[in-house]
């Protein structure tokens, strides 16, 4: 049923060792799906009837895990035929998908510890659409993965009617990061959330030990104990973050070929992401204050693919953790050729002067709300959040001062933030829709805010005058790109 004149292309399957490699991930998926039952098993009683129930649950868990792995191995088949990548999988609920090469956003090759031991890799062929990796081939031999990758790349090029460029592996790395730079990346990530969660868990645990222990602990929490504890918590979370970042991005290298950009990284789990340059939707550059002071920024490259990595939606398809500031503009231009200006040296349009009052109002309101909740939750310690309310207006001013935007012939650039300075660059020919939003306070001040949607996300421009925003609403359409 291929419709081609030649012999039918045979379907290929996963490597037999995938049974071993996939067992743990499948077990994890089963645990995630049946965690209430397993929790009941752990905390349940130990009567005779309950023991029988526990045994039944354990056997069910084991059978489900092994069964899923076996079915996945036996039913997953893929091939490249009729110029398309085809995948089918499933026994009771079958799914078959045909991917047009032109829809492929990026190809990712992942090798975790089990893959390494068995000489296999996981291939993820990602397209735009829902959150699944449509072409997820969980365990292929490295040689087969290389063959498949080459075949897909040839298809994409044939569709684009391009000549064959030089093999990408010959391109030297445009940027290679040292372990020290990777540790610095982890060190400069925000860890306040982690500390807050750990603190909450700690308080909850004290509560579990009974009122006497909680009361004793409360009395012991004098400022001279609390301050070192806070410092220790932050130091610990920073060290953890630095270690995790070093392992995850170990040996990070970024390469550019004629039509693709490739990132490779990871010590235990090795990842290789190949992104066709024409598929890049937007760039985001994160510069936390510490990272800025060190002279670095992080570059995130988004395509239209909605990827799932390690069971959660991931932030970006391509991430360059640490880029020296003097190379940021050049790398952005390599990733997004439509970018004709240097976003760090060009004069951006500032946020509207009246936007300052809205920024002060909303930031102070949020800080006051948080403070009120904390005071209600803990009348003794909640007042510690009062400085947040006092600092809200100057912080809003700092943030407002650093906002900026620019619409150039090929791109839209926007920047926000003081502690975390973020710069977005969107290719204008990728704009999907443009929205102008105006709340009641903005209406009073004659302001409006433009949101630009591309397939990789939504980017908001700083507040501007409503008339200017109305002009932009029309100007940012793809058809208006070449208009004078």
């Amino acid at each position, binding site marked *: 049923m291929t419709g081609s004149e030649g012999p039918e292309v045979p379907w290929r399957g996963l490597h037999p060792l995938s049974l071993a490699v996939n067992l743990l991930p499948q077990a994890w998926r089963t645990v995630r799906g049946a965690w209430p039952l397993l929790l009941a098993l752990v905390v349940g009683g130990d009567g005779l009837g309950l023991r029988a129930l526990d045994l039944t649950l354990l056997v069910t868990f084991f059978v489900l895990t092994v069964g899923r792995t076996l079915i996945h191995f036996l039913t997953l088949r893929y091939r490249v035929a009729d110029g398309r990548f085809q995948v089918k999988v499933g026994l009771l609920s079958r799914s078959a998908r045909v991917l047009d090469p032109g*829809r492929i*956003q990026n190809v990712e090759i992942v090798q975790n510890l089990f893959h390494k031991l068995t000489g296999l890799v996981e291939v993820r062929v990602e397209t*735009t659409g*829902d959150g699944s990796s449509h072409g997820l081939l969980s365990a292929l031999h490295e040689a087969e993965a290389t063959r498949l990758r080459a075949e897909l790349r040839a298809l994409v090029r044939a569709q684009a009617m391009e000549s064959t460029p030089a093999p990408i592996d010959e391109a030297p790395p445009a940027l290679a990061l040292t372990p020290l730079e990777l540790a610095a990346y982890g060190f400069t990530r925000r860890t306040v959330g982690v500390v807050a969660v750990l603190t909450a868990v700690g308080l909850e645990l004290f509560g579990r030990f009974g009122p006497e222990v909680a009361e004793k602990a409360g009395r012991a929490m004098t400022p001279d104990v609390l301050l070192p504890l806070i410092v220790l918590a932050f130091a610990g979370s920073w060290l953890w973050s630095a270690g995790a970042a070093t392992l995850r991005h170990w040996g990070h290298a970024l390469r550019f070929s004629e039509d693709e950009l490739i990132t490779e990284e990871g010590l235990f789990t090795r990842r290789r992401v190949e992104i066709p340059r024409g*598929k890049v*939707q937007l760039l985001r550059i994160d510069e936390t204050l510490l990272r800025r002071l060190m002279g670095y920024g992080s570059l995130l490259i988004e395509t*239209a693919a909605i990827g799932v990595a390690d069971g959660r939606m991931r932030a970006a398809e391509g991430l360059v953790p640490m880029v020296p500031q003097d190379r940021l503009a050049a790398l952005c231009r390599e990733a997004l050729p439509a970018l004709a200006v240097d976003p760090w040296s060009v004069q951006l349009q500032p946020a509207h002067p009246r936007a300052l009052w809205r920024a002060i109002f909303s930031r102070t309101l949020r800080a006051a709300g948080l403070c009120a909740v904390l005071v209600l939750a803990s009348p003794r310690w909640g007042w510690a959040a009062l400085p947040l309310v006092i600092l809200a207006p100057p912080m809003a001013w700092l943030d407002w001062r650093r906002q900026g935007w620019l619409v150039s012939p090929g791109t839209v650039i926007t920047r926000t933030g003081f502690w975390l300075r973020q710069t977005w660059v969107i290719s204008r*020919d*990728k*704009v*999907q*829709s*443009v*929205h*102008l*939003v*105006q*709340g*009641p306070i903005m*209406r009073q001040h004659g302001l409006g805010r433009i949101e630009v*949607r*591309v*397939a990789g996300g*939504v980017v908001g421009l700083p507040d501007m005058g409503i008339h200017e925003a*109305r002009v932009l*609403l*029309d100007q*940012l*359409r*793809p*058809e*208006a790109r070449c208009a004078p």
Partner: protein
Amino acid sequence: MTVWRLGRLVSLLGFFIPVVGTAAWFGRELIGPVLTGVLAGAVLLWQLLLLLLWPRLAWANFRYEVREHDLLVQSGVLFRRWSSVPLTRIQYVDTEQGPLERILGLAHLKVYTAAGMSADGSLPGLDLAEAQRLRDALSLRGSDDGV
């Protein structure tokens, strides 16, 4: 406007009155019957006002126009929104009819681009024939998805 008004009535009867009633039942022990009565009354009065006024305001502020290159939609009462969806970027167009809309012969038109799961353009309360005409006309216009 009738659909929006009926929708608010359903949410008032099916959600707000039971929730406020339950909260008031438990709240009178904590903050006293007078304050509970005042708070519950205020919430219900606010919802009643929304039921009477909001649909008219929402309808008065809702506009759409199919222009040469894009679909322009204006909506919102407190928070106003103007959405410009280039016709070439439209991936697909849906018409949806809930039970109330089916009774009144109306439909909700949703326009999707490659930008994500939610609709970039949303036109509620269209006459069914007009919604179907728009759906067919807009579906034919997409050519370059920009992806």
